């Protein structure tokens, strides 16, 4: 191919592709145009010097496309409406109904997870807990190191954590937190003085967490947790059990039994799984759809490991505490007998409007 031919080809390509941009295609879409890809692969057919200049031209075109920003063209891409002129400062369109139409008010709904969250926050707030929100991107330090997971420890694997392709400032990969416990170190560090002033640390941390799990009716890769942290002098396992029992009794509006069973988390010692007596069958129906032999496992918890307190600068000889991680989706599923966790993110209005 001659230099002229190739130049003509690039000119035509430039015309075609900028035309697409002006027609409303995004730069990302236009950059995928097969003609552009073909032009780059055709470069190999050209002689050395020609190839260099043609390559520069194509790279420039690619840059131009990537940098393209449509001019503020007023009604350029607006569809013909009842009024030609678009005035966003007016509450209604020219000739439009006053006020602008909305869906029927009675069809509105608040998501069941928001409702569960509000209810949980309300109860814990009344019990004296402060609310701190979690993060959706964090570092390995907060996810693991500060929580007594030694580097390279196999227990890290049990949390099925998503690592990101992007690094934190120390050069380690960022993570999508697999539990809200990743906030413990921050919460404790920030309240060290409060503790020394004689006030306990009593904090709940709701947030989205992520785990590399296959999706089915009871598992999703994203779910909502509510972390609880309580630290003071002489805090006991008995305090942990009573606090959570109080919460669940308030949440389900009835007297309940709770039991703890041994478990393992690196960040608590001892660690437990907590179960409540079934608030639906009162442990009386062997075929109850919600519970297993009268009990429902609701969360993991334990006494905060001394290394976790130390990592936050808190003296574990003087202070002790407990923490838990509660699944908000599970709480809502149990309360409403929701059969499939995927409904929560389905956007299905027939599901949403039931709440």
């Amino acid at each position, binding site marked *: 191919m001659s230099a002229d031919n190739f130049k003509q080809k690039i000119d035509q390509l430039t015309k075609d592709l900028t035309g697409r941009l002006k027609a409303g295609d995004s730069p990302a879409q236009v950059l995928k145009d097969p003609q552009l890809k073909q032009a780059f692969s055709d470069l190999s057919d050209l002689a050395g010097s020609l190839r260099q200049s043609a390559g520069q031209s194509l790279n420039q075109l690619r840059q131009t496309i990537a940098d393209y920003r449509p*001019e503020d063209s007023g009604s350029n891409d607006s569809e013909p*409406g009842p009024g030609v002129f678009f005035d*966003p400062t007016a509450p209604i369109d020219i000739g439009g109904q006053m006020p602008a139409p909305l869906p029927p008010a009675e069809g509105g709904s608040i998501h069941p997870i*928001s409702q569960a969250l509000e209810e949980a*926050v309300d109860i814990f707030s009344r019990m004296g807990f402060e609310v701190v929100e979690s993060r959706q991107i964090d570092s390995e330090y907060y996810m693991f190191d500060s929580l007594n997971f030694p580097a390279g420890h196999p227990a890290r694997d049990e949390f099925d954590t998503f690592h990101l392709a992007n690094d934190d400032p120390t050069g380690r990969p960022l993570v*999508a937190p697999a539990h809200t416990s990743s906030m413990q170190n921050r919460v404790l560090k920030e309240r060290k003085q409060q503790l020394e002033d004689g006030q306990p640390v009593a904090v709940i941390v709701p947030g989205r967490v992520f785990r590399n799990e296959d999706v089915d009716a009871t598992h999703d890769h994203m779910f909502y947790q509510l972390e609880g942290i309580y630290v003071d002098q002489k805090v006991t396992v008995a305090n942990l059990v009573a606090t959570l029992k109080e919460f669940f009794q308030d949440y389900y509006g009835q007297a309940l039994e709770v039991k703890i069973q041994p478990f393992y988390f690196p960040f608590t010692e001892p660690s437990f799984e907590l179960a409540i007596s079934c608030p639906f069958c009162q442990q009386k129906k062997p075929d109850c759809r919600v519970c297993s032999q009268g009990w429902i496992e609701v969360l993991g918890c334990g006494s905060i490991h001394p290394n976790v307190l130390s990592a936050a600068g808190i003296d574990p000889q003087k202070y002790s505490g407990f923490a838990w991680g509660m699944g908000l989706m599970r709480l809502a599923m149990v309360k409403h007998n929701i059969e499939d966790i995927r409904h929560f993110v389905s*956007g299905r209005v027939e599901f949403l409007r039931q709440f």
Partner: protein
Amino acid sequence: MQVNLGWLKDYVDWDVAVDSNGLIELIARRLGEIESVDDLADKYRPAEVVLVESVEPCPGRDRIRVAKLKTSDGIKTVVCGAPNLRAGAWAFWLPAGGVVPATYASNKPLVLEAKEIGGVVSEGMLLSPAELDWGPDHDDGIVLLGEESRAPFWAESQKTKKPAIGQSLAEYLDLGLVIDIENKMFTHRPDCFGLLGVAREIAGIVGQPFRSPDWYHLAASQTSNSDPEIVIDCPDFVSCFQIARLKNLTVRPSSVSVLARLSSVGIKPVNNLVDITNYMMYLTGQPTHVFDWKALGQPARLGVRRSRPGDELELLNGQTLKPVDDQPVTLVVADDHPVALGGVMGGQKTAVGDQTDEVVLECANFNMYDIWRTTMNYGLFSPAATRFSKGQSPHQIEPVIRRTAELLALTGGGEVVGFPGKSVGKLALPDPVSVSPEFINDRLGTDMSVDKIQAVLAGVELHSEIDGDGCLAVGVPFWRTDLQIAEDIVEEVGRLAGYENIEPSLPVRSISPPPPNRQLRFNQSLRQVLSGAGANEVYGYSFVGADLLESSGQLPQKSFEVKKPLRPDLQFYRQSLTPTVKALISQSQRTAPAPLALFEIGCCHWLGGPVDDEGLPLDQPRLGLVYLADKTQSSRPFYSARRYLDLLAKSLGVDLDYRPAAARDLESNWPAPYRSGQSATVWLGGEAIGVVGGLGDSLAGFEIDPRALNRLVSASARSYHPLSRYPASRQDLTLRVGTSVLYADLLTCLEGVLSQSDYQAQLSLLSIWSPPDQDQFKHVSWRLELTSHDQTLQTAAVSAVVDQLVSAAAAEFKAELVT
């Protein structure tokens, strides 16, 4: 960890019922969650022990014979092709009507029928190992009883058991309940990956003595290091490597008892030598491996080293391992040639086969982190790797290799030649843990006596002494690598004494109220307003695909990226909420009729976005709403989306401003797929807090920063107008202006006039419309409401204000009063 309770009885007895109110519940409450309880008696019912009375040829058939059996139901006849069938033998018989055990858990259980074979009706069958689900058949033979003296665990429990006609198979082999305890419970308990560890725990839980085998307490002895020479070339990864050499062995199937017990806990039998190593691993948690000595090449040096470029090893599972340079592994090497992937899997070429008569038994301590990395890097998993990755004690090696060698010699009929071995430095025993009884009670919230605490600990072989300060010095046996600090002892005491015995008590604290989270409360009020106006709250995933980003005009390379996404549509963090909500509304319209509005309160992230003082990305809160108009709606959907914002503003007591959005605003500040010619930026207090705009012919939406909104609302005071004693006067007003005059500008002009008047004034929009064929003009109608605090206003006073309004609008916008 699967536990055969019949096997467990070799080490502990219990006096509680084995049911969900007894032993099963105690184990769940004091050791770990039980995932399943299976009764093997169901699987093997109605198979029973029979005596073969006679064996006769089958007329006209060479390969089958007719046997008369002495059964619980008298003499029965079966037709059998097993070559090892002989009169006087004891065997397992499955009568007609029984389910072949190997098919018990399958979709189609095979129910045996009485069948005529070679002119003889066969009343059931004599069972082979495969039919019993005990691994492959050998030489098509049936299972014959009577070799139990060679079974290692009989020797251990000092029991003898003779077959009896009609005894059920399950009873004869102690096959009853098998419980599966969740492995996660034992992440820090390498000892509980062995039956001895579990038995010890159960002894402590039920308060019965644990029959601790003497051989397990054997202290490390001085080992020679020769024949072959033991070489540890990677001391950071292997702390101890020992072997036993055995010769004159015979390889054959394991005895019935071994087959049954291994199978009962999910271990596939292989041959008598390999089965013993698996049996010992199951018992102690310590993996071992047997190599064929001749296949190893009778090496002068045997040991471990890290992998090097070019190393290659065919593994027992058929895979060929080629370690890559940046993911080295620990290899067992014979004269430097790889023969096994240390701690994970043996090599195919050196495996014990039918002709093996001389073996090397290897027992080592591999670094748990290294084993874990190897399994993750190469996707190679094995029971040995599972156990090593929990951190087995190196002190186990001596007792385990001695006992395993003894059992190999017993089952293989051979003898031990020697125990060459090597350790890296001195293997230290764990230090005692010091803890006061007060500390234990303070942490648990209990009031246990010292005697009670000591007794609870002694139940699991944790012996303690009281020192001069009244503290307990708790001796830590070598198998409890998890016990290091006082809190570990607190757990032991609380767990074994029963957490159910802790009386719940609420913490005592001051009544000072905790600081409120105003944003959370604010977000809740936004939800209330939007849902009250017919919108539905949705939750979308935080992760989206490149397609969704690109179709929204967003560049994937600006998103944080998940390294190993579950699916391509979950690869990137979303940069705005609108694309997700828009996608959800597109799906919803199939089942829910328009008009429809979905909203989400969530967070977004993008590269180069705000970070905290450690440089970590911060969540950017957003409220996004998408409105779908029905087909009959004549006005643009933009105005419905905007109305939601106006409702929010009204509920918050503020006025929002809208300014036509430039394409650049949308690209840089509010990455969302809004149409640039139909969008506006949303302003409050001189700050842009979001964008509202068209998303398609019948779609529009907005996305705002709820945190900025909350901050700005909090900073502005609600204005209150005292109520007048006099009634308001109202007059409608219509102005004709050019279509291009912005409504907000016109309103600002009128409000400027009203602010100068002596009255309390309010303008309420009634309509905006264009006369037919006059697109260049629009008529804007308001209702003016004027209130005086001094008097009831007369028409003339109201008209005077209207005149001022018209004059001002005429001067600024060439507006005309429409009468």
